[in-house]
């Protein structure tokens, strides 16, 4: 199948994509340059007073006016509709430095919101949402658009993690321990520990420890990892309802880590699992994952579920007042993200990462604090947007209307 044509496409895709990355990286500079260049001649076009000379003759025979038409702007007040909320999302710290009992060079704090996502007219966002990049402990099926960026490090989680932090700007790394799956390689917990060790050595950002989805095996492996890396405040991804919740919560607490409480798109189940965790864990040690569905494949459920959870938390529901994590990589489950389609929808090298971006940004606006992501261009874009929303500068209001006349 890998004929000449296919190969050409791969090459073309690579080029386009690395160019995109490169250009995205340079965008900041370009914008600045442009801004400076054009700052001088902002007013060229915007002279509506001069253009709008009195040539439009008001029609004389319209229906007789009921009341006198205003002759000047009727000034009215605008009062920002600011609210206060009884609830607050708890702050959760991920990662621990040497002085804190771990070995991480960097730590992050997420949560702490007292207002819906980026309602910064009310109150500033206390902590920027962060991005954790996916690293797999073995070869897994990956979309072509993703694979081209990590092909040299597949099967080498430590190198992959390094690439993700140094080149792609990851705030955190999620190490997915796929090989422990009894249906895959059934790798023993000791082997998983070695993988985590290699990743922890390679990068100094906080880690997320991802399981395989088997409730029994995951608990065994998580315990081994939790004990070996006591004090690191790793995020254990995840604790689910069909696991031995008490056992998991205890080894997470005892060894100083953080639980990711995962439930399938149902706020009542999320509350219930969180309540079970409260018996053993303080609130500050719990992040929740309410399930992320891809754009086009149930994103509306995920969005509304998260939006409702956050509003409920602010209205004082303590059982939902946790930072939210999203498995945004699920965006790639949508076939439109990776599949070759008719020419009018190509190239998929752009369509795919954009799918991940749109999934992420939709959920960013619902209140997600931690994104688990995959494609470097998507990561770069989401980081840029977060930076803008955290306190970007104001735009140039005078110049904005020029979109009407801009020549593209």
């Amino acid at each position, binding site marked *: 199948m890998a004929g000449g044509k296919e190969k050409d496409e791969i090459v073309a895709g690579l080029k386009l994509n690395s160019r*995109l990355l490169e*250009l995205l990286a340079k965008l900041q500079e*370009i914008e600045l340059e442009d801004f400076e260049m054009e700052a001088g001649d902002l007013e060229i076009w915007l002279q*509506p007073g001069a253009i709008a000379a009195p040539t*439009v003759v008001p*029609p004389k025979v*319209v229906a007789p006016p009921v009341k006198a*038409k*205003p002759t*000047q*702007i*009727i*000034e*009215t*007040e*605008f009062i*920002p*509709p600011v609210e206060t909320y009884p609830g607050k999302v708890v702050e959760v710290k991920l990662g621990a430095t040497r002085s804190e009992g771990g070995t991480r060079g960097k730590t992050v704090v997420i949560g702490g919101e007292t207002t819906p996502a*980026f309602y910064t*007219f009310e109150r500033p966002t206390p902590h920027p949402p962060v991005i954790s990049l996916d690293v797999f402990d073995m070869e897994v099926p990956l979309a072509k658009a993703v694979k081209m960026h990590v092909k040299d490090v597949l099967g080498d989680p430590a190198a992959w993690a390094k690439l993700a932090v140094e080149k792609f700007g990851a705030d955190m790394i999620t190490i997915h321990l796929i090989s422990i*799956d009894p249906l895959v390689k059934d790798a023993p917990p000791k082997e998983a520990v070695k993988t985590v060790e290699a990743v922890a050595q390679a990068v100094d950002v906080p880690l997320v420890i991802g399981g395989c*989805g088997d409730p029994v095996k995951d608990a065994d492996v998580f315990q081994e990892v939790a004990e070996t890396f006591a004090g690191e405040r790793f995020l254990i991804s995840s604790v689910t309802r069909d696991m031995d919740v008490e056992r998991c919560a205890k080894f997470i607490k005892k060894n100083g880590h953080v639980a990711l409480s995962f*439930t*399938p*798109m149902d706020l009542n189940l999320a509350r219930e699992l969180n309540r079970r965790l409260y018996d053993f864990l303080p609130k500050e040690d719990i992040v929740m994952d309410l*399930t992320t*569905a891809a*754009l086009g*494949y*149930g*994103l*509306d459920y995920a*969005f*509304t579920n998260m*939006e*409702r959870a956050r*509003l409920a938390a602010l209205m004082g529901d303590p059982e939902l007042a946790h930072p939210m994590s999203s498995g945004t990589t699920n965006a790639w489950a949508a*076939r*439109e993200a990776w*599949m070759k389609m008719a020419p009018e929808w190509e*190239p998929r090298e*752009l*369509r795919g990462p*954009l799918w991940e*971006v*749109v999934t992420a*940004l*939709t959920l960013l*606006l619902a209140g997600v604090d931690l994104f688990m992501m995959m494609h470097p261009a998507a990561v770069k874009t989401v980081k840029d947007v977060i930076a803008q929303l955290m306190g*970007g*500068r*104001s*735009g140039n*209001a005078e110049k*904005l209307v020029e*979109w*009407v*006349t*801009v*020549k593209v």
Partner: protein
Amino acid sequence: MSEREAKGKIGVKELSPIDVYKLLPRTNCKECGEENCMAFATKVVNREVPIENCKPILKKEFEKAYKQLKELLKPAIKEVVIGVGDRAVKLGGKLVMYRHELTYFNPTAIAIDVTDEMPEEELLSRIKRTEEFRFEYIGQILKLDMIAVRSTSNDPDKFKAVVKKVAENTKLPMVLCSLNPNVLEAGLMAAPKAKPLLYAATKDNWREMAELALMYGCPLTVSAPNNLKLLKSLAKTLVEYGVEDLVLDPGTFAGDGLADTLNNFTMIRRAACKHGDELLGFPLMGVPMTVWLDSAGIAQEIVKWREAYLAAMLIVRFADILIMHSLDGWALLPNVILRQNIYTDPRKPVAVEPGLKVFGTPDENSPVMFTTNFALTYYTVASDIESAKVNAYLLVVDTEGIAVDSAVAGRKLTAEKVADALKASRIENKVKHRKLIIPGKAARLSGEIEELSGWQVIVGPRDSSDIPKFLQEKWQTQT
């Protein structure tokens, strides 16, 4: 605390069927098709039927009650109609700020721009591509909605000519864009009955724009970039002037100013929905194409990429209409799908009936597959089986409308459920073999399914697009 509050008038959440029932004729005449007036009132409150389905209420004797009902049912965001005929577009008409409070009405309209200095060939090609854009998704056709005609020349004659050309070549409604009233008037003369949306009234030209809107019966956009006091003042002035249909543009900033943009959209929508501020209760316009303002020297793909994600954020944050430049499928597809998702009625589960579905004319040797009852999953799998032109049975397992991978993770799809569904379907009476093809993403259930059902499990492809190939290679060698 006051997210729940609605000062002044009854918010949609508080409106009960009784409030509507009290004002109906209460004769239980059934003309509306409902059993009685109370049942009708319930549907009206849920916005499932319009009040006008009650024929008696439209009679003279109920005039007062009808007026009261209209006021009671008035959406927080006014519905503004652009264009005429069957492609006319409704903007706004929202009742709630958050979709879970009821549902959103009137999906964000997407307008694609053309200019009065574009070569004719390009102009016609852009119109054609806008009109012909279509993507089939869960049995719906996703489309683009409007053409935004910009005057880059600032020349009335050129604008008039291009508006004429656009009107001749498409029935899509137009947005006429120029801050120069003379130019806009020339455009309106070329299409005097088309009821385009005018862009835009500003602090400098509002009077002339208001006159044009009144003269031609057009809705009018109000533009006040990042200045909500001015925006609201202009809205008040224009309403007083007699212009009833407004669209609000608080400015779309792509890079610097993005935070202000989201704040402005949010503040306007909250003021209208939660505080009953009627002057801000108009549809909102977002202009993702402002990304092209500073695009010199930047690769087109990057600008299109930025335009696409800006559009997505605005679809999520309350925009009722967007003006875009990029016509690239890769950039538009995520947005039309996002729009469909956000505007799906959250009260209705997106699920299909579980049970056994038949494709072609299967016999006792035909393959048996299963999938979940999430509508999108089902339609996707069904269309892939159809395109393979094979005779097969597809068992739809009830996962409460959740897709395969999420359902496996969330235990909505279990071996028990599959075994029970197999049994209930009586498929064992229809085929000789006992081989079940399961979705690749449900592979981890294989062993348990075999144990519980006694059927042999064959793990199918992870994506149903591979079903045709899979059946050809695996099923035929199996049998």
